[in-house]
């Protein structure tokens, strides 16, 4: 009797505590890491989590077409006209468009949004300062030309097509001037308030943000893009990929982002879950610091290294599904991207190149982020280089430590990644193929690689107005870098995500900001 009573009590307590899984019907629940988020002000946010949010909180004058990202489509501007000197653009704003606050979208808002980026001078401001804009001249470069028109001028030798690409970047999001200034503190253009609130015209608006915990957005029915299909978007911070997998399996999340290849494989045949591998524009590469030693500066060593990178072993074996082989500095999908893969893993050929150059007993240290997939790739390279007689010592470090060591040139080599800052080939070309020797922190500068001719050609490419000519020049630049440079570009990443099978209408593009939630239904 006593035993029966105890077992009954036990069963009753378990029943009371038993948990049922389901996400609320009108809410899209996304499980991802939010630990990278610093600020939701478009003038500062430059992390994956924040730029993804900007696409859903704000609109720009023009934006990439979600289906064909290379095409820019009018968004808050209905059309635009380049000036005769190719140093200005006049935008006509959409009639009747309003912000979430109900305030109309005016030329003043465009001027306020772009000028505050320059005046606040925070991390993403470099995207717009490429136009020659600075705190002193910005007010004269942006003018209201009529009640619904705004003209942008620039001094830099860049084409209007390139400027349009820059204006489609998240940093060029249009902010409600009246709303932002009503929360201004110490002339900060509303920066502090916008770090955790929104003042845009996107399909959603921030209802609540708790750092490292949750970002809750509610529908903006006034959005010129139309109200989103689901009324609430809840992005919750789940730092562990294994936990994200459990949440999507149980139906406690509708979308789980940034899964590892093991979680992705495990979800392949789970009922109710659709795993999706989205190609993104991040490139993974090995970079040598040419200032570190004569060997690392030797082009024969660079060439041999191209045959010691086990492209296939990593992309199709170790990290299957997470990468594809890519060996040029423009990711597949970008204007002018070179998709040739002339190099394969061949330790014997590498040994022959090194012997011919008289390079023996080579060893160097690779400073690498201690998180997957960086460390996995670095360990694979340690093994593949060893077969070519090259010894690598790995120094696993914090991501911030790797960045600091690269900035101060205190490293031999690193395995790292590069993601584009805006959707234009110049974003990568400027990083890999320019070293202006003026303190600009490009990858060529990090590598100590002096390339005046390549730098001049890259600058020439950005001034071309004809897209075919630009593509041809970028292809030429990629071939040069692919053949001889202190980088071994090997992999293009895929983002592994999982959706519940009832989720429809989700779109994601190749740039970090191209995440579109407004058309999602369930």
């Amino acid at each position: 009797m006593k035993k029966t009573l105890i077992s009954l009590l036990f069963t009753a307590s378990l029943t009371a505590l038993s948990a049922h899984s389901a996400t609320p019907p009108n809410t899209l629940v996304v499980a991802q890491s939010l630990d990278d988020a610093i600020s939701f002000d478009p003038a500062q946010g430059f992390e994956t989590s924040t730029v993804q949010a900007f696409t859903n909180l704000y609109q720009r004058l023009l934006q990439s077409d979600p289906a064909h990202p290379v095409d820019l489509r009018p968004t808050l501007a209905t059309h635009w006209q380049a000036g005769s000197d190719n140093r200005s653009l006049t935008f006509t704003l959409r009639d009747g468009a309003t912000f979430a606050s109900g305030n109309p979208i005016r030329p003043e808002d465009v001027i306020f949004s772009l000028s505050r980026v320059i005046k606040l001078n925070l991390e993403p401001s470099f995207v717009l300062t490429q136009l020659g804009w600075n705190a002193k001249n910005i007010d004269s470069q942006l003018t209201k030309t009529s009640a619904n028109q705004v003209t942008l001028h620039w001094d830099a030798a860049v084409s209007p097509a390139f400027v349009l690409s820059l204006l489609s970047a998240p940093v060029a999001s249009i902010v409600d001037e009246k709303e932002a200034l009503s929360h201004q503190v110490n002339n900060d253009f509303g920066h502090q308030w916008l770090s955790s609130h929104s003042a845009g015209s996107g399909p959603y608006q921030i209802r609540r943000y708790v750092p490292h915990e949750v970002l809750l957005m509610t529908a903006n029915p006034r959005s010129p893009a139309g109200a989103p299909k689901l009324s609430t978007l809840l992005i919750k911070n789940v730092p562990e990929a294994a936990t994200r997998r459990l949440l999507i399996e149980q139906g406690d999340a509708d979308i789980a982002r940034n899964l590892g290849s093991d979680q992705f494989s495990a979800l392949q045949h789970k009922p109710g879950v659709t795993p999706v591998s989205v190609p993104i524009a991040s490139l993974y590469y090995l970079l040598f610091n040419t200032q570190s030693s004569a060997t690392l500066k030797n082009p024969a060593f660079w060439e041999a290294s191209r045959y010691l990178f086990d492209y296939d072993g990593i992309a199709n074996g170790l990290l299957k599904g997470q990468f594809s082989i890519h060996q040029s500095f423009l990711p597949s999908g970008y204007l002018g991207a070179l998709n040739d893969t002339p190099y394969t893993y061949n330790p014997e050929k590498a040994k022959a190149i090194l012997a011919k150059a008289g390079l023996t007993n080579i060893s160097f240290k690779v400073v690498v982020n201690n998180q997957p997939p960086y460390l996995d790739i670095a360990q694979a390279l340690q093994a593949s280089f060893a077969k070519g007689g090259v010894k690598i010592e790995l120094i696993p470090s914090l991501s911030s430590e790797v960045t600091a060591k690269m900035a101060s040139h205190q490293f031999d080599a690193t395995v790292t990644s590069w993601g584009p800052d805006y959707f234009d080939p110049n974003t990568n070309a400027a990083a890999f193929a320019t070293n202006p020797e003026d303190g600009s922190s490009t990858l060529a500068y990090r590598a100590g690689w002096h390339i005046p001719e390549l730098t001049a050609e890259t600058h020439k490419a950005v001034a071309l107005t004809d897209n075919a000519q630009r593509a041809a020049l970028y292809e030429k630049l990629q071939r040069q870098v692919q053949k001889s440079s202190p980088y071994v570009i090997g992999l293009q990443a895929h983002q592994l995500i999982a959706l519940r099978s009832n989720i429809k209408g989700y779109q994601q593009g190749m740039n970090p900001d191209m995440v579109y939630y407004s058309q999602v239904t369930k």
Partner: protein
Amino acid sequence: MVVSAPNSGRSMPVRRLIQRLAGNLFSLMITLLGLLAFTFTLSHLSPVDPVLQLVGDHATASTYAQVRHQLGLDHSLPVQFWHYLQQLGQGNLGVSQSTGQPVANDLLRTFPATFELATCALILGASCGIGLALISIWHPKSWIDHIARVISLLGYSVPVFWIGLLGLLLFYAGLHWSAGPGQLDDLYVYTLEPKTGLVLIDSWLSGDREMFINALQHLWLPVAILGLLSMASITRLLRAALLEENSKEYVTLARAKGASRWRIVWHHLLPNTRGTLITVVMLSYVSLLEGAVLTESVFAWPGLGRYLTNALFASDIPAILGATLVIGSCFIIINALTDALVWLTDPRTR
């Protein structure tokens, strides 16, 4: 004179207690100052550049210099530390670079989550740990003693990260006995009005019984896992102390005089091992309060441990110092409390 003697006798311990507390407070201040100075120096010795973290790779030299100046990093280390102490004296812990929020607000948000988890885990761990230790000494070297030793060994040796994931897999994904990661289901989490920051109490105060049950569903599994760790250390140390006490002659005499097992435990063994018991339980509490980083990560629990880890990764010096201050204060206060409890309950230590 004769009449006044008992009064002065009573006031003596009170005076000594006050003196002791004042001494403890002074040593607390000195220790905290030392801890802050040590953490401050360590943070600045790190190769991570906090300015680069803020301005990014693309910043120009002038932007870099401007932000470095804004953060006060262009002053010498002692001057920077003095400025920090001045701000601290005014109750200002600074603004976190990684969250953009005042550090004090961040700590007020994250500490209650850790406090709730740690306190519940301690209650569970201490109850089970003391129970297992008592069972062990009642039946030494029996099968039940062996089981107790294996459980405590497992709690010591199994990585908490692994056991956390396994727990989620079994009780959340497999058996559905536990709710998922986080403190509440998405249905409730944004309707709860935070009053104390403790989800159990806030959900109880809200009057919504289902929300309270949901909070319990989320809480019990991380509590059980942390409780297992706490139980392991309590069982091992208390069992050893009880076995040693049990082998003493006065216990044999009590047994020979026909004292019952309960009487021996309650009147002889436990009172004579209370010093060890209090110390072990309090140390366990301190280690739980320091923040169970891995458990908090696996269970997406927004606690202090994860906050500090994120701050360390971002080289967010105000957040690192703020969290260190809270953890250091907890450590020192609980140690002082342990000393006071042992002193008050055990006449041999006076």
